[in-house]
């Protein structure tokens, strides 16, 4: 197991041990891991870059940290099986080791949140997982939280009860099988308070809407996805155009993001 400590004593790569792996919805898995790396996980919204244990797959899979449990020295991810890599990850079992780079990227900035603030958290589909750890930390800060979640259908709603323990949860489903029929934009349209901060993660369309609506908001953040190679800032695979000079300058989702201020990048 290689790892190196920067001045800040950060472990950048480690074989984490799987504590549990469970299917929590169709094609959606929750994997809990333990290792020294957990002690460096201090910001919600960072991600892990997971090596797929398959010699033919040379790229890692970026997956957001869904929960950090410092007491038990564990962290969790929640991921959907999309292609071959996540399919293989989903076959790993408790006791297996998994080669992980992280915690990677800049997470959500919650430094300005104070007790009593009413904050808005917007998530969609498999973008919801990192919002769980975020919600936990926001609640610890004493914020009042409204969650707006958009899902494809009832089947794939995750952690609903857990989120309800953190704040008020509104859900929309594309097929109307639960909550409001439609997408999360409909929930957003019905919003009746002015949030002190906004945090969002989900599909590009949703992020675009959030980015547009809260363009001028001083504390609104979106978390992006992008196809990555290095996952740590060296290859420029994952870039997103900057709002200033979008033709000539860009930011790296893996290193400068994945969380960006609204109005800072071109979606």
């Amino acid at each position, binding site marked *: 197991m290689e790892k190196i400590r920067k001045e800040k004593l950060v472990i950048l*790569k480690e074989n984490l041990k799987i504590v549990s792996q469970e299917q929590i919805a169709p094609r959606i898995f929750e994997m809990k891991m333990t290792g020294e790396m957990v002690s460096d996980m201090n910001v919600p919204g960072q991600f892990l870059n997971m*090596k797929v244990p398959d010699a033919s797959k*040379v790229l890692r899979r970026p997956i957001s940290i869904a929960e950090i449990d410092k007491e038990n020295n564990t962290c969790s991810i929640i991921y959907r099986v999309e292609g071959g890599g996540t399919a293989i990850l989903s076959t790993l079992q408790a006791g297996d080791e998994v080669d992980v780079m992280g915690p990677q990227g800049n997470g959500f900035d919650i430094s300005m949140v104070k007790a009593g603030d009413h904050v808005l958290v917007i998530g969609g589909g498999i973008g919801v997982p990192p919002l769980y750890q975020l919600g936990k930390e926001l609640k610890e800060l004493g914020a009042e939280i409204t969650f707006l979640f958009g899902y494809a259908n009832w089947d794939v709603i995750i952690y609903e009860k857990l989120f309800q323990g953190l704040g008020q949860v509104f859900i929309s489903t594309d097929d109307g099988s639960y909550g409001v029929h439609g997408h999360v934009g409909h929930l957003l349209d019905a919003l009746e308070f002015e949030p002190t901060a906004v945090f969002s993660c989900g599909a590009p369309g949703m992020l675009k809407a959030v980015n547009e609506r809260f363009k001028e908001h001083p504390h609104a953040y979106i978390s992006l996805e992008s196809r990555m190679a290095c996952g740590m800032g*060296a290859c420029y*695979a994952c870039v997103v155009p900057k709002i200033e000079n979008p033709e000539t300058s860009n930011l790296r989702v893996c290193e400068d993001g994945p969380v960006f201020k609204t109005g800072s990048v071109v979606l």
Partner: protein
Amino acid sequence: MTDKNRLSIKLPGLDLKNPIIPASGCFGFGQEYAKYYSLDELGSIMIKATTENARYGNPTPRVAETPSGMLNAIGLQNPGVDVVLAEKLTWLADNYPTLPIIANVAGFSNEEYATVSHKVSQAPNVTAIELNISCPNVDHGGNGLLIGQVPELAYAATKSAVDASSVPVYVKLTPSVANINDVAQAVEEAGATGFTMINTLVGTRYDLKTHKPIIANGQGGMSGPAVFPVALKLIRQVALASNLPIIGMGGVTTAEDAIEMMIAGASAIGVGTANFTDPYACPNIIKDLPGVMDKYGIDNLQDFVNGIQEELRGN
């Protein structure tokens, strides 16, 4: 085993403590990997392709995965040679003053190759240039071909760089040709010091839902273990036809791979895609080399390389 000299390799302009060099475009300008390990462990670094002016690069997605490989179409994103000199190379010189750097020079005209080669070769830590005439992800003059596919164009670009540079110029060859020695010969005649090879093959992948290429650029350069046998074949082919030294690359992932590529005819080894699979790929290969050398009865890498070169080139 701990004798560092066992691993050292000398090439024109390059006094390498070991033969392992991160390949251009897969290591940025080193800063990010310096968080993982001391860059002084490396033989050298081939920094990201540098052009005269800043380049944004291609639209995203820029990468896709393939069986035992990957595609990329980064499109030569870089901050331009002046910023590279002022910031990137300076940072490297400040933090790793004894580490020799190979600057990857790209361009869209002979003038640009000359300007960038001239400028970048002035940096005190740049001891060699890798002339990139083979990037499959940018169009040269709209003729659908790369400079590196046409001997006459390759000759002119190399000559421009060689004349302008104050350090040795290694020219990076593309595998996308019918006979690589036509280009290698032209490049040699133009005064190149050596070759680096191979640049990426060209491939693509499609999204089954949208029917669109996964890479926004439509296609990309293929690299990684999948291309290793192609690299070996072409390195051997050039080694048999030219006496110039070759820095080999293409799919190297382990110390065994590095030795196999030296058998093919390479004197030093670039490592690209493997850095993405494992950020410690290069230091791991360096660490594993002595054990592999022991296994195959190789005492000293320079002697080993010399022996193979003599056999291949009969000199």
